[in-house]
């Protein structure tokens, strides 16, 4: 079982690690150590905890990846992030869409300057008897369309480039 978890807490990243389980639960949250000496389940969505010798009542509810936690009169939003995603930063690597294989363009669905959304079909190519829809890897604006319908291209050809929305 993993002992270190990444969450976002009210949209700020937080790393939580379990340091010790006995006799008290010792948790490292970012740089802060917290001791939980008692966990008492009151109902399916309510616990009373003793955190650093103070008794707290905590309510929680889960909605897919978001966990809503209420204590001390405030509601916080926690959401789980896997370690790889948590450490990734937005890159520019997906600005250029390259051909995975040689082929021919069946049709183009976009023009320079178009705003596109994640998952939009930009062009359809055919290679080795298969038609492949090339979709936008993210939201953005079409910077260049380097290829026209019926044109052939080699592997790794730069088909389309994207830029950020202004």
């Amino acid at each position, binding site marked *: 079982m993993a002992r270190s978890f990444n969450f976002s807490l009210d949209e700020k990243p937080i790393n939580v690690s379990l340091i010790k389980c006995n006799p008290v639960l010792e948790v490292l949250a970012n740089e802060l150590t917290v001791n939980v000496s008692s966990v008492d389940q009151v109902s399916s969505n309510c616990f009373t905890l003793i955190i650093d010798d103070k008794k707290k009542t905590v309510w929680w509810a889960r909605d897919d990846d978001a966990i809503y936690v209420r204590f001390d009169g405030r509601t916080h939003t926690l959401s789980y992030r896997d370690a790889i995603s948590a450490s990734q930063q937005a890159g520019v690597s997906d600005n250029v869409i390259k051909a995975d294989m040689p082929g021919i363009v069946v049709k183009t669905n976009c023009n320079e300057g178009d705003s596109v959304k994640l998952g939009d079909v930009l062009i359809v190519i055919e290679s080795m008897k*298969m038609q492949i829809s090339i979709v936008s890897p993210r939201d953005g604006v079409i910077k260049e369309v380097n290829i026209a319908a019926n044109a052939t291209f080699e592997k790794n050809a730069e088909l389309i480039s994207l830029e950020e929305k202004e």
Partner: protein
Amino acid sequence: MARIKSIIQTDSNEFQENYRHNKGLAEELKLKQRKARYDRPQKDIDRLAGHGKMMPRERIEKLLDPGTPFLEFSTLAANMAYEGDSPSASCITGIGVVNGKEVIINANDSSVKGGAWYPLTVKKIVRVLDIAIENRLPIIHLCDSAGGFLPLQSELFPDKYMAGRMFRNQSTLSKMNVKQLALVFGHCTAGGAYVPALSDYSVIVRGTGAVFLAGPPLVKAATGEIVTADELGGCDLHTQVSGTCDYPADSEEEAIAIGREIVEQWESPKKWPLQKDEVEEPFYSADDLYGIIPTDIKKSFDMKEVIARVVDGSRFHEYQPAYGTTLVCGYANIWGYKVGILANNGVLFNESALKGAHFIELCNQNNTPILFMQNITGFMVGREYEAKGISKDGAKLIQAIVGSHVPKFTVMCHGSFGAGNYGMCGRAYDPRLIFSWPNHQIGIMGGEQAAKTLAEVKLRQLERRGETVDQAELDKVYHETLEAYQHQMSAYYATSELWDDGIIDPTDTRNALGIAISASLNAPLSEQGYGIFRF
């Protein structure tokens, strides 16, 4: 593990069109399955009832633990053979649970021509016995069969994988210490007599059950002796005199109750300890699969979108995400079980084949079962790729598959053409189980390519003979070839011929694989070892 981020647009026209099409295919599948399972002439239903017999599926239902899943194999076997006279190939096979233990069911369907064995019946029974051998699963035979269908005897009796193979497989199971129980509800004639005789335990129903090498008519013809079926091989003869059967039962219900109690005595299986994590439902709904699978066999789709709808939490640890990207490789969990997945996102290049072979070796090193998800037109062709050794790289992929000691599973998600079928663990490569989706198509090449090739050959022939080329004749060759190919390429033809273990609704893929993986753990891992890879 990171969750796959789906970028499918469920409100797009394409998704909606795919959805309608594939949902329709799934409904057609369910209709065909229902007919094969339950539609019988009233006279056959009445005949069984008149003998005090249950319908075969009723017997299975009473035998299995209530509320447990039954993974049925090849429900539509023989659906395109014998003019539809042998629904499900006249037998019911699958994996079920009896007293908490996974068992193989092999039931004759006496509601079809007295349960007579057609050639595809024999193929289906031999296959389920192979499944029992490969996975070391105990087997319960529900016997009620008139024996071989005599008009087709040459296609079911003499060859290596024909009727004799059933008893060879039963003997092999026995040698491997895999338990077998026969419940004799009806006649076990000729070869069929060996089914209970080769079982470790057998129960026979008084009045209707009978076991004999030759039934009364054949005995009369051979020796002139006139004898009733019950005198010749009935319950009392075999449980009191011959010792061929072990337990007498006064009714089918009693036979089933005795059978369940026998299974209760069996030791619990010692499964090998595959890494198992907490089960998490997929984040994305399996229902989306209908909208992801294209309507046209020529159209590609992102297999990661499919993986996201099959695996736990839609989480996937992708191996070499930037290399050989037309073959997606990575680790995931299905019903908690760790698996390695290879899935096609386009034609296989040198890099994809090398990546696949390496990943298969990693799965073997890590004792992780492997799942192949096929949508493959083949390996890349052309001078550049031959020069880079595409044939020897494909050979490495095949050798890695064959050398694997971990269980393998294959799902035919869409096309399976040419050598791509081999490189992705097709039927010939011993996947423990192989399932197809209803949109699946399979062939040595695509129908259009085959038709073009043959029309071309015809043209050359005519030219060589100096005959005039008649375009209408060439068109005829093209269309006839295309039609024949399309008929034989369909998932229904493939499953009719038992090239798979059944067609499944795409939304059932996760459950079918969960049962398949769990069952596979009954067999210990074999020794590791590969042949000589050509570098």
